[in-house]
């Protein structure tokens, strides 16, 4: 075929030349078109790459880089001396995110060989992860050990969706002592997130972010929170992190430091002396209202709330009859009992009743168609001795003589029934009743009956107050001249909060208040709390007033007077006081819920707290340690600076042979 096909060429010259000419012209055109096309591409390139390049550079950078929110370190909370009450510690976290090619169940199965994850927890987490938005990490484990953390981190590249990183977790070094005041932080709930305002911040969705749920942590959440930072990371088209660019990071602004007026030693001592007893203690500097101790017992470990309580743990706390979750210093109100007699006495003095007027106590007193009891036969009592012995019969009659409205007026001047702005929420005002109250709240029986006054005279009846109020009352009695307000927050981020000292004088004659104080000194010398006035601190003495408040009516013999019988039916034990008597520094109120006698349950605890408060005060300490004036003291032993002699060294004498170890 080849031979014959190729042997005879057929060439038509004229035709060929004509076709060739047409082809050449048109091929030239084709080349021209191609050239124009390529030039057009070049022009387009010039436009994109030379003219618009900045716009595309920005778009490229916004593709390439993402900013990842970094939660700010939460502000530290310290006591008046700088002791840390709440801070942050490193936390090794394990998180798993849903993503393309990630099987949550299988991933958790692998992880369970590194960290303890039982099947039930795995199943629950797998559900959480598949419900979470894509690439939103779900916390699988907090507080891993360094070994667990490093083991997982080494294998992380083979485990898509798994991240192990170091975050911060809140820590409360004193555990339960401050749980009610400081509160705690916890994971953000759906209900915490608001459409506007500070709680709409995207940081709220960060798995490592915590929000204040109680106490100072809640009230000053925004101050403690700080400003989130951002980590500049390079991401690929699927949103996976490729690398980070530390130079482009925006540092987080740590939260503000909050300084409280609390004293860690007094507060801790309160927790010790309360043990598993239920109650509250408030200690206050009666010169300026600084709260040294605001304790409610029994308490709970706030650190457990940060980690997240199990259902069983929570219900155990919630169901316990001594109510550990409740801040009894602020939220619970109790009848003040005999501590209220200080107010009745002052009201009597202020109404012009002679303090030397006497009443006879025979253990019972018939008036108004019923018999009013006293716990002892006190015999003839004047106001001074009636406060000291806490004679009910005297105060039944004094209250009747003064009337409820006057008593209420005086009590309110001392802060009873009032809510103080101490920065944290949860205060219950309680009640100081008067005739208007009766009229307002009892439409069926709007009249104050005379029979209701004797009860009020001994701090029972409608009267119920919270421990903070009683501490304010004790403080105002102690400093005598001026009203003061309690203060809990000393400073926020270095800015001092207004002092509680700057309030007006009390509208009472100084000699009347001095009279009450003298009677309170008698209480702890010869009276109901005679055993506890001596603090064992040199010449410092504590004045005070006990109170034993009925928690239940004794009708039908169900009540338990004193520290016997069923716990829930026992009396509440109160003590309010201040020290030193001659120059008051600290005032306190102690409530032991269902503690029985005020003198037996509350006064000894009050004494311990007062001792710590006084010992921590350098001026008081100087006074305590001041050597007793010894006539034979040679002047050479005195230091030049006039400070007291340092105590004799306790260290063993090195010259003595040591006992064999």
């Amino acid at each position: 075929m080849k031979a014959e096909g190729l042997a005879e060429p057929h060439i038509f010259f004229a035709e060929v030349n004509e076709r060739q000419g047409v082809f050449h012209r048109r091929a030239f055109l084709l080349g021209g078109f191609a050239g124009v096309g390529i030039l057009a591409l070049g022009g387009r390139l010039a436009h994109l790459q030379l003219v618009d390049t900045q716009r595309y550079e920005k778009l490229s950078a916004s593709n390439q880089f993402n900013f990842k929110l970094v939660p700010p370190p939460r502000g530290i909370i310290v006591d008046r001396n700088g002791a840390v009450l709440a801070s942050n510690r490193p936390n090794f976290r394990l998180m798993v995110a849903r993503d393309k090619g990630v099987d949550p169940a299988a991933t958790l199965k692998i992880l369970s060989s590194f960290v303890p994850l039982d099947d039930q927890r795995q199943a629950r987490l797998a559900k959480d992860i598949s419900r979470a938005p894509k690439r939103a990490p779900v916390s699988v484990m907090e507080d891993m050990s360094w070994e667990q953390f490093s083991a997982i981190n080494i294998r992380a590249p083979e485990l898509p969706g798994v991240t192990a990183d170091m975050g911060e977790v809140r820590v409360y070094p004193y555990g339960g002592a401050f749980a009610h005041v400081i509160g705690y932080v916890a994971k953000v709930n759906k209900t915490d997130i608001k459409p506007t305002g500070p709680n709409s911040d995207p940081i709220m969705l960060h798995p490592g972010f915590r929000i204040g749920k109680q106490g100072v942590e809640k009230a000053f959440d925004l101050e403690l929170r700080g400003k989130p930072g951002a980590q500049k990371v390079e991401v690929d088209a699927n949103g996976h992190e490729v690398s980070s660019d530390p130079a482009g990071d925006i540092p987080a602004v740590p939260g503000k430091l909050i300084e409280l007026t609390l004293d860690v030693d007094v507060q801790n001592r309160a927790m010790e002396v309360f043990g598993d007893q239920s109650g509250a203690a408030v200690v206050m500097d009666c010169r300026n209202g600084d709260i040294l101790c605001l304790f409610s017992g029994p308490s709970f470990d706030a650190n457990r709330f940060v980690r997240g309580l199990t259902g069983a743990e929570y219900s155990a706390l919630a169901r316990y009859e001594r109510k550990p979750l409740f801040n009894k210093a602020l939220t619970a109100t109790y009848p003040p009992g005999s501590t209220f007699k200080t107010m009745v006495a002052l009201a009597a003095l202020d109404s012009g009743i002679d303090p030397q007027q006497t009443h006879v106590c025979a253990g019972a007193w018939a008036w108004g168609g019923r018999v009013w009891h006293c716990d002892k036969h006190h015999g003839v009592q004047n106001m001074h001795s009636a406060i000291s012995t806490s004679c009910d019969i005297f105060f039944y009659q004094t209250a009747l003589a003064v009337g409820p409205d006057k008593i209420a007026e005086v009590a309110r001047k001392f802060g009873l029934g009032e809510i103080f702005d101490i920065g944290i929420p949860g205060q219950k005002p309680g009640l100081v009743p008067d005739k208007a109250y009766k009229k307002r709240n009892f439409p069926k029986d709007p009249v104050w009956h005379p029979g209701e006054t004797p009860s009020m005279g001994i701090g029972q009846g409608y009267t119920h107050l919270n421990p903070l109020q009683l501490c304010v009352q004790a403080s105002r009695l102690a400093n005598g001249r001026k009203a003061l307000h309690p203060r809990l927050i000393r400073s926020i981020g270095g800015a001092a909060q207004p002092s509680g000292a700057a309030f007006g004088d009390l509208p009472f004659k100084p000699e009347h208040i001095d009279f009450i104080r003298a009677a309170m000194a008698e209480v702890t010398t010869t009276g109901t709390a005679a055993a506890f006035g001596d603090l064992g601190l040199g010449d410092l003495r504590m004045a005070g007033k006990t109170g034993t408040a009925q928690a239940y009516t004794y009708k039908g013999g169900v009540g338990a007077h004193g520290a016997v019988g069923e716990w829930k039916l026992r009396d509440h034990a109160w003590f309010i006081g201040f020290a030193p008597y001659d120059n008051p520094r600290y005032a306190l109120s102690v409530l032991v819920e269902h503690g029985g006698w005020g003198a037996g349950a509350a006064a000894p605890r009050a004494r311990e707290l007062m001792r710590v408060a006084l010992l921590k005060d350098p001026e008081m300490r100087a006074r305590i340690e001041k050597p007793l004036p010894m006539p034979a003291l040679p002047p050479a032993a005195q230091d030049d600076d006039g400070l007291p002699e340092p105590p004799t060294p306790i260290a063993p004498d090195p010259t003595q042979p040591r006992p064999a170890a």
Partner: protein
Amino acid sequence: MTVSALTRPGERDRLVVKIGEIDWIFCLTLCLIAGAGAVMLFSIAGSSWTPWALPHLMRFGLFFAIMIVLALIDLRVWFAMAYPVYGLGFLLLIAVDLVGHNALGAQRWLQVGPITIQPSEIMKVGLVMALARFYHGLSGKSAQLSWWLLVPAVMILAPVALVAKEPDLGTALLILMTGGIVVILAGLSWRLIAAGVLSVALLVPPVIMFGMHDYQRQRLTTFLDPESDPSGSGYHILQSKIALGSGGLLGKGYGLGSQSQLNFLPEKQTDFIFSTLAEEFGFVGCVSILALYAAVIFMALRTSYLSHSHFGRLAAAGVTATFALYVLINGSMVMGLAPVVGVPMPLLSYGGTVMLTVMVGFGLVMAVRVHRYSEVTSGKGSLL
């Protein structure tokens, strides 16, 4: 060797002479483009020879050898093979329609043992050869305007219809345009050309409305307004433009193109490799590559001028037209001037099929050059 020596009978058929007649500068230009492709494929694989750069180079080496072998084949054998190749391509297109492999909603491949065959690629060269052969035997007058023109019309439209049915609109259009260019180069009357252009302009809207698949229509609408759906269908075009634009004058540096390295750029190793190059080497790199392409086109087109046979002229010009269309369509696509149609940048993009087509085509072009003085029969009276 003197000129007179070349005129000696049989002298031109010597292998050494033939090899000397190959345009080695043209071959070098092809190597430069393929080499640039390998360099980019190495970069986007994260500085790795696998999975793309090494196969790309090995394939190119093999196809380059094939091209040289094809260049040495007598043009009369090419002429004789024209109709059989076209016929084979046509049969395979029908076969693909019946038993072809379905990929991404389109039947484009035939699996024969380990080899996948894309008949539309055979048709690209086959059609050029068949048309060149037909026009070789047709007078200039008939080529201008005659009933004979129905033959090339059917030769073009039949495979175009089959490829469009696969559906592979991009390739169908490419075949149609290549065929059209050969017909025009052969001397079609300007009136007919004008009528054709006019009818196409009238036909386009109804075809878009009724004759297209949804995804094809969507590609077209997003081309017209890419920012309307930046994360959806407009994504390809937008990301490609970002890659190009952010490259600037000198580029982000080799291996530092964030658009391609971080996978923002889709199909970065195939259809959008030019964007990768633009991002990493900038305007300077792009213009250099475009200059190489222009050089290839003009050298190939010049070869068609040298040919003494009408078959050689048309075949060389047809292949050149195919190549130029590849470059222009892919360039327009990555620069946001044309809708996304799966047309790669020849020799630069990863992928064996198109590279084989192009290199076989250039084998034909080189054969035209080597055998430019060959006298080719009209083909009448010969079966092949």
